[in-house]
């Protein structure tokens, strides 16, 4: 048997364990409970967390090696796990991080991942533009992508006469409804595209190409039947954010696929965790871009004004998005992963 018997060990250290546990319990209380006047909870004495935690770790190790009572070991294990959580929880400057993210990290990350972003962009824009052009020569192609009633709906929505009749592309009280719809629907697709990347990229590639063909068909058809101003005027503004957000979420999905297909010198599991961290950083930006897109689509694109203004605004928005990703975050040289 060991030199110190269990009962002595407990006797000697119980006070410290209890102090530590009380302190942890108090820290876990919510802000409101700490302040509540009804049943006032006395704040326990402050402890030197790292020091006490190390001591208890030591006790735990001793109890383990001396094979003390499993219940005692369990109790110490629990204290140690709780202390571990407390000591290693991160307290970060949340607002500051967000500012830095959008001013520096996000555009820099997109540039850093330019290869995979280019692949995602090609997967979407190549079929998209190809179909637009193809439909100008073979208009019936639209019916291989959509059925007749869908085409009719689409034509109905962007009929140039419509605006003259109603003065607005739709009733204004539905703007917020459409905003909600775009949020739920579009960002949902972005998230699924990202997640689909985990299936060796198949999900991401599918959504990218499918959306490229589908949207391309719609754009091509509208152009072909001459609803140019009503349709392009509507989509050009929010398209800068929506289409590129989609490409980026596809890229984030492909980043996951890369870890599975080409893990390099890491194990696939390790590569997934590392690439997942990069991918989710891209997704934060995607969410914000998609919300901006939904906002523009619901409240700006639907207003009726001279179409020239919409084209100019659209051109500005596309330029802003392009410049954002090209220029921002270039000044400081520190690496993202420093």
């Amino acid at each position, binding site marked *: *048997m060991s030199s110190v*018997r*269990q*009962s*002595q060990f407990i006797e000697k250290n119980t006070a410290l364990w209890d102090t530590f546990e009380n302190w942890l319990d108090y820290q*876990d209380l919510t802000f409101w409970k700490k302040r509540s006047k009804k049943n006032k909870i006395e704040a326990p004495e402050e402890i030197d967390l790292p020091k006490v*935690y*190390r001591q208890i*770790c*030591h006790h*735990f*190790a001793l109890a*383990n090696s001396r*094979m*003390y*009572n*499993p*219940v005692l070991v*369990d109790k110490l*294990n*629990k204290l*140690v*796990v709780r202390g*571990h*959580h407390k000591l*290693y*929880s*991160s307290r970060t400057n949340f607002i500051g991080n967000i500012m830095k993210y959008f001013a520096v990290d996000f555009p820099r990350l997109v540039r850093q991942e330019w290869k995979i972003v280019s692949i995602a962009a090609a997967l979407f824009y190549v079929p998209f533009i190809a179909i637009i052009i193809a439909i100008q020569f073979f208009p019936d192609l639209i019916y291989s992508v959509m059925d007749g009633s869908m085409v009719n709906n689409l034509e109905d929505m962007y009929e140039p006469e419509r605006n003259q009749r109603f003065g607005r592309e739709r009733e204004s*009280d*539905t*703007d*917020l*409804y*459409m*905003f*909600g*719809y775009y*949020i*739920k629907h579009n*960002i*949902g697709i972005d*998230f*699924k595209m*990202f*997640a*689909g990347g*985990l*299936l060796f990229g198949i*999900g991401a590639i599918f959504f990218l190409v499918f959306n490229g063909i589908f949207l391309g068909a719609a754009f091509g058809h509208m152009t072909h039947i001459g609803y140019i101003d009503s349709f392009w005027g509507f989509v050009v503004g929010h398209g800068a954010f929506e289409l590129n957000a989609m490409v980026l979420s596809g890229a984030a999905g492909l980043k*996951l696929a890369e870890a599975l297909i080409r893990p390099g010198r890491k194990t696939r*599991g390790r590569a*997934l*965790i590392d690439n*997942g*961290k990069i*991918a*989710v*950083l891209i*997704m*934060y930006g995607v969410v914000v871009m998609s919300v901006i897109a939904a906002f523009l689509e619901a409240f700006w694109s639907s207003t009726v004004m001279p179409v020239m203004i919409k084209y100019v605004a659209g051109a500005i928005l596309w330029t802003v998005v392009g410049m954002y990703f090209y220029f921002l975050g270039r000044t400081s040289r520190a690496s993202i992963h420093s």
Partner: protein
Amino acid sequence: MTLDTLYQVNTPEGISLRLSPAGPVVRMLAWIIDILIRLAINGVFFAALAFFGKTGIGIALILSFILEWFYPVYFELYKKGQTPGKKMFNLYVSMEDASPISPGASIIRNLLRFVDFLPFLYGFGFISMLLTKRFQRLGDLVAGTVVLHKSLNYPTIEEDKTKAISPPVALNLSEQQALIRFQQRIPYLTAERAEELAQIATPLLLKNSSENSIENKQASSRLLGIANWIMGAKH
């Protein structure tokens, strides 16, 4: 040697934490609770906001979007890794190294829920959990997270310190451990079962090596006495 699913994490303090990952069944039950809560909240959103016409539905759509994707994220980050369902079953989400889940990891594991759900009802997630040691679904693998059992507070046992019997034969450490564990488990066993188990430890039940008869009825209390002795009770 061990058949259980416990695993250990070494901390910078040079000790190892013992953690027990949760399996698919209990996680499914927790998920069912959560999905019911979410459906109920969703129902309330739409019922209440429908009064405000299409505008209200628009707001409800946004809220239901947030609920769909970020309900678990909120609880994982602000409620110590426990959604209400997980709390009910004493589970919590944490990083693989037992530190609290980070915001990025929480968002990854919940966005990837979509893939785990494929082809239907968490098919991929289930397969992944069966193939990994720590029951991780795909989202957990990418996020580096794990769902753990929160260890429960076992009632501490008032030990009968009065009796201490020195063991008639020398015991090695694992044998001593077995006796102490037996002592801890006694309150959860029926008297008959305790007796039955105690009978297995034949050599300990002999008063001295020359005697051959096993004391009936008294086997478990004798083992308790020996356990007390091992733990340091005095004669």
